[in-house]
């Protein structure tokens, strides 16, 4: 399945909406096992993306992703800034010659792994990105799947990110970055479904 500029724009706008609506949900999740700012961080990113897109409408998919990446890198900070930023930057490079959705998400997922020196089962957003890219490759991603990936983080023990300091006590809580990633892919499904 390929993605068009129009679909991707819709995707990003829906993502922005979800981030703005769920700022406090994300902060609360991050308060439980992190430092309470993931919602604030992503909301700041959402506003920066909106502003950047309002300034200049991207001409193609690659430019759209680059705009998203730069806005996030320059405004989010924290762990999620470089991670989402690197994902979209790598996707932007890939999108110069590729519009297959599964491939693009796969490249983004790899970017996060590289930047975060992390992998699946560490209770990070990768536990949503990685299976999502695989399901897309198999042509069968649903909102229920995304929700399952998110929920799978609940019983994991974190070994990367702030939550890892809690060791065993990180169990029993959803990973905040996985929740924001779930919003990202819910938005994607909504955009592609339309």
């Amino acid at each position, binding site marked *: 399945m390929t993605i068009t500029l129009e679909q991707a724009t819709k995707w990003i706008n829906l993502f922005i909406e979800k981030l703005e609506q769920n700022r406090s949900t994300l902060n609360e999740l991050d*308060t439980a096992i992190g*430092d309470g*700012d993931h919602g*604030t961080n992503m909301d700041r990113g959402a506003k920066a993306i909106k502003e950047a897109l309002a300034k200049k409408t991207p001409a193609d998919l690659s430019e759209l992703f680059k705009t998203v990446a730069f806005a996030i890198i320059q405004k989010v900070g924290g*762990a999620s800034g470089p991670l989402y930023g690197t994902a979209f930057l790598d996707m932007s490079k890939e999108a110069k010659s590729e519009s297959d959705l599964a491939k693009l998400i796969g490249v983004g997922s790899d970017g996060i792994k590289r930047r975060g020196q992390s992998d699946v089962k560490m209770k990070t957003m990768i536990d949503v990105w990685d299976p999502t890219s695989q399901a897309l490759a198999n042509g069968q991603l649903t909102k229920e799947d995304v929700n399952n990936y998110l929920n799978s983080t609940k019983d994991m023990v974190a*070994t*990367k990110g702030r939550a890892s*300091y809690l060791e065993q006590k990180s169990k029993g809580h959803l990973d905040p970055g996985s929740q924001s990633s779930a919003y990202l892919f819910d938005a994607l499904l909504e955009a592609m479904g339309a």
Partner: protein
Amino acid sequence: MKKIINNVDNIVPEMISGLVRTNSNLVRQIPDTTAVVRNDAKFSEEKQVGIVSGGGSGHEPLHAGFVGDGMLSAAVAGQIFTSPTPDQIYEAIKAVDSGEGVLLIVKNYSGDVMNFDMAKEMAEADDIKVESVLVDDDIAVENSEFTQGKRGVAGTVFVEKILGAAAREGKSLEELVKLGQQVIANTKTIGISLRAATVPAVGHPGFELKDDEIEFGIGIHNERGYSIEKIAPSKQLAQQLVDKIMGDFDETEGKYAVLVNGMGSTPLMEQYIFANDVLDLLKEKNVTVDFSKVGNLVTSLDMLGVSLTITKVDNEWIKWLNEPVETIGW
């Protein structure tokens, strides 16, 4: 939540503005950033390795309060508890490089590590020599290859003080990296909290403690600790921290520096009482304390609590710790 602020979203820029305007003899703000850089007369003439630190806000006076002759060349402030972005760090690196290269002092948090790394890559593209040291003094968390490693907390100020003084003396970037790693390897901290910090955007304390509870081993961003116990007299609290920290050193020989650090809302009065107990206990253990410091240096917003840092030092480090500096917060 009761705080003296205007808009939650403007806390950091307004704070940096207040800090710079009331200390313009010491620091200036880099335009369009929340980074501050030395502004004293000596700075522009100086050729030394630039020392840049930074991280999320909420730990004041860290880091901006330690910018000045003999300590940091620049400091980059992120949002509250959130690493600053690479472009801001990059601007700070450029502002302090005098051709001798720039050393980044980074607290070991994934966000800080990643953002400072990205900034380093940006500066290297400009042919600026950049190195970094990762402070991970918080021995409350296990250091395992399967985790993020230990956190960087209050010991950071000792690293900043020693490296800042050594850089002023003309040490090279390579020497400073080595020195920094040595200081970090010999620096150990544990923190205790009587009440968690309230992140303004969250509006309530990051964790709940009962009226008679105290948490051992907390981090500076409301990271939970290793145990919750009944609040006890200062001397008993000090005993647990001193035992744990000294037990983590191979020996009690040599000389040590001690930092009793307030977490933000605990008055100096209590910090001095705690410091008094710490010194008593170290004396009982025949540990020689050659430098000590007490105060709010690395805070965690309005957290109630203290942390204890002990560094095994050599004579040159003591000299560097004692050297006068012109900063807001040391």
